[in-house]
């Protein structure tokens, strides 16, 4: 069981209703973490359209969730 912080942006934040939350997870990897949170919050975006970042750097979906880390799911960007 890992306890970590998850950040939500843009449409994910609107759907979650919060910009961040503390999560306890038993997921084996970040893909599993997103799957669980998508089910809980009803996120419309499938994982294939997102990127994931840990502690302010892009990470891989196969990485294991680290206790105490800050995980962000990055919806398709639209700056510029």
């Amino acid at each position: 069981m890992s306890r970590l912080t998850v950040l939500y942006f843009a449409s994910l934040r609107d759907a979650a209703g919060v910009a961040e939350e503390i999560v306890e997870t038993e997921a084996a990897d970040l893909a599993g973490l997103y799957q669980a949170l998508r089910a809980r919050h009803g996120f419309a975006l499938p994982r294939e359209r997102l990127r994931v970042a840990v502690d302010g750097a892009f990470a891989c979906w196969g990485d294991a969730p680290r206790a105490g880390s800050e995980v962000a799911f990055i919806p398709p960007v639209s700056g510029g």
Partner: protein
Amino acid sequence: MDAARRFRLSAEPIEIAPLHARLRHPAAGACATFEGWVRDHHDGRAVRGLRYEAYAALAEAEGERIVAAAIARFGLKAALCVHRTGELAVGDLAVWVGVASAHRAAAFEACRAIIDEIKRDVPIWKHERYAEGDAGWLHPDEGEG
């Protein structure tokens, strides 16, 4: 803007003159700039204004990486980029990119590469308000935008 930083987010209107002044270099013969302005329409819909939100820590790291990589790849004398966050109206400056190099080919190519990569990789999201009263986040499919 911190003299060592070549990308930053700005919650306030972007002032071009001090950025432009930082590009000056005696061996630079060419300066190319790009400005993204808020348009009055998008995908056929009338736009009233928009809001940009960023994941600031990652956006600033990615932006800095992109600008530094362009300086190295194109042998630029200088390059800078600033991107707005917060509420913007039609006509407002959303993003500014400026580069200086010895010759114009590298200046144009580098300026284009920087804005393309900023739009592709920097975690900033646009929330548009439409004339009809509704609003929404833009999450373009790959290849769009």
